[in-house]
């Protein structure tokens, strides 16, 4: 997914000469191809995130399309106030590419996880936010970001995520039906896609045929489209590699109340606490109930209760 996004940037460079990449001393090897072709459009800003963000805002004000690249906590948390005041308040079309979404970096430790970033971005008006599920969505989101006149945050996992989409072009600002189904819908985004897909396959083998909906654009969220897609659905599940209380699930909770939706809603994600456990990503997903088998078990259990 990371390479798909970067390749989209390189492709865009053929048509426009204003793109400039700033790295916060991250992404060794990621920009080799870009630097080969556009060596004068790349700067490693060192380990100085506040300066990097203000500097990006300044370059953007002179007309450059600036792309900032870093691991999410260092892109978004360390320099939150610069993102807020320098970029979002001034409505500058800077692209923030963050990698390591969710617990992608397990077992590197809590400092390197990004399981609250969607809570943080909800405090930043003007910021458009993408959490793609696969390389196809990552590529389209990167293209969207470069063409946008607003700041855009791309929340990427890392690499090696499976391709879910069969079509390469669609409106990335809208939720996407990955697989049709009835009665049950699973909404998801970001790095958890592979687990959701496996769980859905298991459910199919148990005569449950969930609709799978990816939500690449988290902010602003097209609520009308969500409501339209969920009309006729009875049970909605949201699965994300993110804190339960401030991610997509909590946004859906608000929508459900605001719109007086009739579907019931069940959230799967990471509980609100710091992660101290040392586990690889699979073991950690399992302990948080978001591995494929946990998702399958949870949905089956809830449907049995609901359907008596």
């Amino acid at each position, binding site marked *: 997914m990371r390479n798909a996004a970067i390749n989209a940037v390189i492709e865009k460079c053929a048509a426009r000469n204003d793109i400039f990449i700033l790295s916060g001393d991250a992404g060794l090897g990621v920009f080799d191809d870009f630097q080969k072709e556009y060596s004068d459009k790349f700067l490693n800003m*060192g380990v100085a995130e*506040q300066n990097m963000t*203000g500097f990006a*805002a300044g*370059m953007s*004000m*002179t007309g450059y399309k600036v792309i900032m690249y870093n691991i999410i906590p260092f892109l978004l948390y360390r320099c939150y106030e*610069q993102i807020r005041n320098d970029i979002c308040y*001034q409505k500058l079309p800077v692209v923030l590419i963050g990698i390591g979404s969710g617990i992608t970096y397990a077992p590197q430790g809590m400092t390197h996880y990004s399981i609250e970033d969607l809570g943080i971005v909800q405090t930043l008006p003007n910021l458009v936010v993408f959490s793609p599920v696969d390389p196809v969505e990552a590529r389209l989101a990167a293209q969207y970001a470069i063409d946008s006149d607003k700041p855009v945050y791309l929340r990427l996992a890392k690499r090696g995520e499976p391709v879910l989409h069969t079509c390469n072009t669609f409106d990335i600002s809208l939720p996407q039906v990955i697989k049709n189904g009835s009665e049950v819908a699973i909404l998801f985004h970001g790095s958890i896609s592979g687990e959701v897909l496996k769980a859905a396959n298991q459910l199919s083998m148990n005569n449950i045929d969930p609709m799978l909906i990816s939500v690449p654009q988290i902010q602003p969220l097209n609520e009308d489209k969500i409501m339209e897609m969920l009309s006729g659905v009875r049970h909605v599940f949201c699965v994300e590699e993110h804190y339960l209380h401030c991610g997509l699930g909590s946004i859906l909770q608000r929508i459900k109340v605001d719109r007086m939706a009739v579907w019931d809603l069940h959230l799967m994600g990471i509980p609100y606490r710091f992660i101290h456990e040392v586990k690889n990503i699979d073991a950690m997903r399992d302990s948080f109930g978001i591995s494929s088998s946990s998702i399958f078990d949870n949905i089956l259990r809830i449907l049995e209760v609901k359907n008596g």
Partner: protein
Amino acid sequence: MDSFAKEIRKNIIHLAHISKGPHVGSALSCADILASLYDGTLKLDPWDERDIFILSKGHAAMALYSALYVSGIIEKATLDSYCQNNGLLPAHLDKFSARGIEVSSGSLGHGFNIGLGMAYGFKKMRSSRHVYALIGDGESQEGSIWEGALFGSRLKLDNFTAIIDFNNLQGYGRSCEICSFSPIIEKWSSFGWHVVEVDGHDSGALKRAYAETSNEKPKIIIAHTVKGKGVSFMEDQLVWHYYIVTDEYRSMAMEELK
């Protein structure tokens, strides 16, 4: 005091009076610096190719609004809407509020780094536009300033000039006691900057400092100033970071600025 600076000061007192807000001492401190910039140093014509002035110490916004008004960049009605209900100008800078507000600021340690980015952008475009950023001495305690100081010299940004309004009074005491910058010249020199030290109320000295060649280095002007300068009972008094300009204070200040 030259007439341009005196007009800025009169308007600062006016704004502090109508707003009943703080920071009049901070604004008076940098009035001569803004006068030296807006009175002939900044290239403002054509507007689209203008030099950029960033007030990084955004709490001195009254000084910038006054300079923009005295320069004819904003209207009297705009100026007089400062901090009024449904007015245009807030107490800290919002770049969407009026012509000539280049950067939104108010939280310290932001404008300096934005300025570095702008200077780099202009340099990459081979533009001759120059970027000036005014920072406070209290503001210089921000880590972001020193991140930028480290980085600025690497890029040989000789189209960037920072000015420190060095009045040695910040929000809660003397800057030299809270977090001393001494030896400030050696600090900035060792970071690779061209350093000039001047009397921040001497327009001629400031203009000579702007004109001085920096040999491919970014420049920093250490401008020694007095907080509240120009109004005797406000000079070098910490309380005038906060005190309100009442009707009586207004009359006394305006009398001195005649």
